[in-house]
């Protein structure tokens, strides 16, 4: 693919909320940086021209919640395959969770992941360190050491922090470094051995449920702690209308909290589990229609800051089993953009809000030099074709794992070109 030379995105619609630009602009990239932004046809340069007609030129999408599985679970995903999947989905950067084997709870593991990224990643990789040693929820990990090595946040994602005192100390201690604590909100006793949302469908199917209160009780606890300690709290993958009410209240009180939602939680409901489809099994579980609607409206009004995928690859053998025994989680990097574009088409989501939620805000929350296409900034750019029609073929996903409930779905919208540091790392052919 293209190396080094100047590239001109011509004829597209630039959506660059960080610089208050939304309209017809050409964007010139030189030597890995944004070199010029100007009216259509106004930039004369000896550059490779990319026809962006009908497309959106946006700051590179950032997924702040993925599981790259390396080290330790390379049979599910690697830094290489996970970032191939990322760039195909339009993401120029991902932040990867710490539940690897060994857990990313030390600078050595952080450095290993960054080494693997330098060797094999198509997208930028930002590791997230563990809050507690081994994700065991007892002692704080060496957060400072990991911060020096390059983590952009800490999280015990996958393992809720049951111990309120540990959570308090994490919120206090991370203030030394100014990084957020990202929380997977789930009361482990209330969630118990539940495998789906506790509601009508669960009662019909005879499966064990996880009540909405399991999430909401922990959101309430952590917001109460935040009010006392300060720090930065980021609520991962919120799934219930009750969590949104708590978030709204906290925002109105001015608490330093941010929040994210996944595409599957706003597109699907627990009805997707009806046929015991293990690709509809994840944590938090798919909730009800009223929850999905609350998530969409919170996203529309900017109450929810971020759309993240919680990309969670699992091997076929971990999904083609009894529902109770199947692994939690689905892959999401290659379907997030078209699923979010559904909200733009059908639910009044402003494209500017989409770009904030998928680029500007994750960059701000994680403190990344990204999310802006001002002249002189790094040229991480996604060219979005909002009308590209394609069908999800699971076997064609770039991720090593194919555990998605969206197989066979007709999608509208895709990343046509993905550029990282001025280099084109993904480009979709004219007809797929």
């Amino acid at each position: 693919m293209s190396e080094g030379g100047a590239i001109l995105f011509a004829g597209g619609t630039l959506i660059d909320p960080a610089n208050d630009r939304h309209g017809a602009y050409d964007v010139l990239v030189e030597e890995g940086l944004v070199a010029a932004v100007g009216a259509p046809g106004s930039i004369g340069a000896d550059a490779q021209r990319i026809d962006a007609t009908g497309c959106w030129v946006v700051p590179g999408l950032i997924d702040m919640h993925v599981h790259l599985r390396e080290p330790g679970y390379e049979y599910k995903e690697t830094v290489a395959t996970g970032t191939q999947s990322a760039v195909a989905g339009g993401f120029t950067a991902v932040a990867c969770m710490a539940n690897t084997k060994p857990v990313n709870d030390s600078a050595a593991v952080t450095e290993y992941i960054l080494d693997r990224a330098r060797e094999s990643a198509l997208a930028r990789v930002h590791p997230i360190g563990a809050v507690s040693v081994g994700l065991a929820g007892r002692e704080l990990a060496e957060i400072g050491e990991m911060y020096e090595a390059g983590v952009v946040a800490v999280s015990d994602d996958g393992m809720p922090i049951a111990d309120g005192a540990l959570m308090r100390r994490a919120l206090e201690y991370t203030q030394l470094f100014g990084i957020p604590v990202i929380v997977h909100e789930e009361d482990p006793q209330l969630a118990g051995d539940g495998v789906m949302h506790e509601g009508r469908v669960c009662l019909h199917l005879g499966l064990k449920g996880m009540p909405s209160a399991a999430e909401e009780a922990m959101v309430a606890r952590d917001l109460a702690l935040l009010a006392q300690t300060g720090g930065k709290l980021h609520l991962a993958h919120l799934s219930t209308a009750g969590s949104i009410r708590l978030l709204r209240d906290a925002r109105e009180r001015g608490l330093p909290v941010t929040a994210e939602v996944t595409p599957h939680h706003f597109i699907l409901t627990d009805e997707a589990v009806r046929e015991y489809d293990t690709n509809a099994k994840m944590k938090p579980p798919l909730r009800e229609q009223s929850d999905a609607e609350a998530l969409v409206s919170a996203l529309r009004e900017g109450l929810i800051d971020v759309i993240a995928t919680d990309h969670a690859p699992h091997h076929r053998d971990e999904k083609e089993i009894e529902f109770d025994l199947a692994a939690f989680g689905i892959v999401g990097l290659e379907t997030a953009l078209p699923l979010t574009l559904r909200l733009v088409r059908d639910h009044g989501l402003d494209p500017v809000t989409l770009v904030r939620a998928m680029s500007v805000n994750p960059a701000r929350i994680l403190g990344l030099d990204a999310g802006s296409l001002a002249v002189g900034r790094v040229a991480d750019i996604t060219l979005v074709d909002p009308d590209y029609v394609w069908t999800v073929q699971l076997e064609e996903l770039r991720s090593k794992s194919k555990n998605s409930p969206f197989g066979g779905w007709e999608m509208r919208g895709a990343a046509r070109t993905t550029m990282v540091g001025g280099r084109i790392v993904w480009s979709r052919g004219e007809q797929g």
Partner: protein
Amino acid sequence: MTFNGNHLLGLEGMSRDEIEYLLDSADSFREISEREIKKVPTLRGKTVVGLFFESSTRTRTSFEIAAKRLSADFVSISGSTSSVSKGETLLDTARNVAAMRPDCLVMRHPRSGAPHFLARHVGCPVVNAGDGSHEHPTQALLDLLTIRGVRGRIAGLEVAIVGDVLHSRVTRSNVHALRTMGARVRLVGPPTLLPSALAEWGDIHHDLASGVRGVDVVMMLRLQRERQGANFLPTLDEYSRYFCLTREMLELAKPNAIVLHPGPINRGVEISSEVADGQASMILEQVANGVAVRMAILYLLAGRGRASVEQRQAV
């Protein structure tokens, strides 16, 4: 009317005509068990395989007798003691069994949805003999056959289902079938075992006396002993104090009310011996009807032959 399903996975969504047809078919098989030679050649040369991943003496025996009275060969595999404990996945077990070309699989499994998974991966009919807390369709059919046999009809009857509704596959199948057939359902039990969201299935009663007052049928559920200790209830003693069907409680129902129980019963926990052994008890009638229901189901599914099932799946 006929029964067109490729499998019998559950009664949810089945039409009134289909259920009626299954009950009529079962009725016609009852007589065979009354003969001196209790065997007909209907399924000669057919193989029925039972996959019992959860211990179940009576359901397995009932299916086995049903198969043998129809002259089918019946082979039964106990999942918990066979390849499953050696780490074989359900998918591998299913494929291996399917490769032996059975004409019908009968599956009991502790996980809800396991028979649905099996049905997606084998080319022959699958009968759900109870999956987790989901459904137990042949049990509900035999319950309905029993009710219809005694009362002559199901429509318009008031049926109280009492006990651990939350975890009961018997309840789910019965609720779907009873409501489809026009009965009125009451659900009775403590709030821990009877979530209020189930109000869409029937009237909720947390008081046994109000729950059984004036009903035509009392369907008792077996209380799993492991619910004690998981805080669904403090002790079995306390449970029985509020929810044991005694003679005094039964007297609140209609004078000719009948009592059903899927067995095995916990005497003195959910049902008193006096009631279990009394005139109103239909427990042994249920067991007899179970064989007839299972003969009908095996006849309808295994009797078709593999080709016809595969053709139907293709369209």
